[in-house]
């Protein structure tokens, strides 16, 4: 090819009709918003499900319409929606789509048509997932991990149709993700503007970039697992089904391997944790640097840590399977590799703290969420060290300790970052500011609330309270205090749930009534704040693409006229004739 994409001068086709601009749009920003709205909408369903679970756990027997099978269905759908349809879709489909072209100085993704298709196929997967709520027998209640043989055996809620819609929806989602992910990766590789070297990209782009590569390599395993389980269920194959007794009768399945499914699932499932975490790492680095008015500490180290975490996460998957009955030597290997991941992760945490050290910290709402992430992530990470060790994990396995751990580290932490990121970038996306007082209330209730919810769960877990139980009942090893803790958690959960409506109210209020934001309200140096229009128009950069002269973190540079220098501002020697 004669010219690079960055030098391509072919005029863009700007759609004229409303449908072309906002519905069948190929503009990465519109697709990003479509992705985000859909992901948040389905995320709200998962949020409601979590409240229903807490109602049952906190006040067993008070709500007779929550039957054991309903409870299991809430657990399963909540988990799957949160991990795949909310977090993955919002961080990569939403933020990835919006931020990559703007941050690297491109006009759009390299293949906008496939990018558009990615959203519509994602929407289809969400619709199939939602259809699961309305099929006979309801959605699957197999737990979000969908372990066979129980997932497709008679007696498990949703084993008639719910599991089918779930597996089909996952397969469709993976097709959608592949179309999007190919775009994100190729755009970062091949469509950067002049001067934008890989080592000048904001860490947000690095996080999304590596997470997209991981998604393209991890989702195939889930895809294969879903196809095989579908064949088991629909065509009567025995890939995962051993010969066994079900409902008092021998099944006609023979010789399959349930552990094979677990390996396939977690070969996807563990990288998935980092697919969600790495974009959050990247975003939080940028939030901290902008609002502490300091360059990020150890930029190159941060990049390498992201790359190394991404690589290592592919060889740790069986730490989810210590109690599955696999060969104990595997446990030795996987515990070692798991604990090695703590090194690059700790490097990142230290670098965040050192970025804050003696910074000019502005405690604005995005920064508050970024700081809150540091708390929850460190806590979740430390409890992960317990679970990564085989001998400590075995007694804690399948207790509330695990629930507390993974909600802290991969539920709450990325979601706090997402809140921070929305507060941070909304002025660019909508051109308006939020009500700061309301946002502060939302922050404090959410931040303190998640501690009220998840800290007691660690205590419950150490007591041995099992997860996924509909009700604890009268059990001698569970003291009265555990029931009290469960009630307290439920009340905290309801308060946090209610506080989220402040967020949505604020978002809608700001869209129509919020004070106008300037092009760069936070004084940020990265490229997305230097667009000629706010919100950016189709094509992003007007007539000429920007040229990048420096990294994205020139804050508080001595002798500079302002306390930040935008990436597209030349060095004095470059402007000399």
């Amino acid at each position: 090819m004669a010219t690079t994409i960055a030098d391509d001068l072919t005029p863009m086709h700007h759609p004229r009709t409303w449908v072309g601009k906002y519905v069948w749009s190929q503009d990465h920003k519109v697709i990003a918003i479509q992705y985000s709205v859909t992901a948040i909408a389905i995320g709200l369903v998962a949020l409601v499900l979590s409240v229903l679970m807490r109602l049952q756990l906190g006040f067993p027997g008070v709500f007779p319409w929550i039957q054991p099978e309903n409870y299991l269905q809430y657990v399963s759908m909540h988990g799957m929606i949160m991990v795949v349809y909310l977090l993955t879709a919002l961080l990569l489909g939403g933020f990835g789509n919006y931020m990559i072209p703007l941050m690297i100085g491109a006009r759009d993704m390299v293949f906008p048509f496939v990018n558009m298709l990615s959203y519509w196929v994602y929407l289809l997967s969400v619709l199939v997932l939602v259809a699961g709520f309305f099929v006979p027998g309801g959605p699957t209640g197999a737990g979000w991990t969908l372990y066979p043989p129980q997932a497709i055996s008679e007696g498990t809620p949703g084993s008639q149709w719910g599991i089918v819609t779930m597996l089909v929806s996952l397969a469709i989602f993976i097709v959608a993700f592949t179309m999007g992910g190919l775009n994100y990766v190729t755009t970062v590789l091949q469509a950067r503007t002049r001067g934008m070297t890989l080592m000048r990209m904001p860490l947000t782009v690095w996080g999304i970039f590596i997470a997209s590569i991981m998604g393209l390599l991890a989702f195939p395993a889930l895809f294969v697992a879903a196809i095989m389980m579908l064949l088991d269920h629909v065509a009567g194959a025995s890939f995962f089904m051993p010969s066994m007794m079900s409902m008092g009768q021998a099944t006609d399945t023979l010789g399959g391997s349930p552990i094979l499914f677990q390996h396939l699932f977690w070969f996807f499932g563990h990288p998935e944790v980092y697919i969600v975490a790495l974009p959050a790492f990247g975003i939080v680095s940028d939030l901290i640097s902008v609002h502490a008015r300091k360059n990020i500490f150890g930029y190159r180290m941060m990049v390498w840590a992201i790359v190394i975490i991404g690589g290592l996460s592919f060889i740790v998957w069986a730490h989810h399977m210590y109690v599955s009955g696999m060969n104990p030597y595997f446990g030795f290997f996987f515990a070692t590799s798991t604990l090695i991941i703590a090194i690059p992760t700790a490097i990142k945490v230290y670098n965040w703290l050192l970025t804050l050290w003696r910074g000019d910290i502005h405690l604005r709402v995005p920064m508050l969420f970024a700081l809150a992430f540091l708390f929850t992530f460190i806590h979740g990470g430390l409890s992960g060290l317990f679970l990564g060790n085989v001998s400590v994990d075995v007694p804690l396995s399948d207790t509330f300790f695990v629930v507390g751990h993974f909600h802290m580290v991969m539920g709450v932490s990325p979601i706090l970052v997402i809140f921070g990121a929305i507060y941070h970038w909304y002025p660019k996306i909508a051109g308006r500011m939020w009500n700061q007082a309301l946002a502060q209330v939302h922050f404090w209730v959410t931040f303190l609330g998640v501690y009220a919810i998840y800290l007691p769960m660690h205590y419950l877990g150490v007591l041995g309270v099992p997860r996924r139980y509909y009700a604890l009942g009268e059990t001698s090893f569970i003291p009265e205090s555990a029931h009290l803790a469960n009630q307290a958690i439920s009340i905290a959960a309801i308060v946090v749930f209610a506080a989220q409506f402040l967020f949505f109210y604020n978002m809608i209020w700001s869209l129509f009534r919020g004070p106008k934001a300037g092009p760069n309200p936070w004084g940020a140096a990265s490229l997305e704040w230097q667009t000629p229009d706010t919100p950016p128009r189709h094509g992003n950069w007007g007539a000429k693409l920007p040229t990048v002269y420096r990294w994205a973190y020139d804050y508080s540079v001595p002798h500079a006229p302002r306390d930040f220098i935008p990436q597209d501002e030349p060095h004095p020697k470059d402007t000399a004739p």
Partner: protein
Amino acid sequence: MSQVTKERNETEENAQGWRAIVADWSTDREVFRHTHWGKAMMWIFLLSDTFIFSSFLISYMTMRASATMAWPDTAEVFALTIGGQSIPLILIAIMTFVLISSSGTMALAVNYGYRRNRKVTAALMFATALLGAAFVGMQAFEWTKLIEEGVRPWSNPMGAPQFGASFFMITGFHGLHVTCGVIMLLIVATLVLRGHYDRAGDYSAVEIAGLYWHFVDLVWVFIFAFFYLW
């Protein structure tokens, strides 16, 4: 310019060893210089697809190792009786030969594409598509034969039920890839013939289609080795 930034840029320019490698790979605009973005995207897609086929094949091998019933003898199952004589794996051998040959015609098509030879490129691509269609046709025949002999996803008269299930799943998924490839080749060949790429001044699409086609062939070699020969 700040002292810090200046020093940083200078270290970048005078980088040595490992840093120099990183600096080369991470220069602005393009990581893969003078490479069409579509080609880069196809390579990444193929990497992802490799993980799908690897998962299928590794799962199949695990199942074969753990199946409780004996695995059927593939040399017997896939034998055809021609002229009163049973020849093992004859159909698969022909299928493999056809598919590998189609990679040859595809490689020639890419070559003629870069020489801007519109007609020969299109002719070679149609030939490739024809060979691909012949492969899918023979696969359909093989499926029919096995189904008539009673092979089902849930059981078969020759042994372990996983045999039929993996056979249909893996060859079916590969056959789907070949079918998609044939459709893609027909579309690109038609565009070549109409002079679309002459006007655009860029024949990359032929090479990108070729990449996919060679990949589908390569995957078949692995399926042939692990499913039929093992």
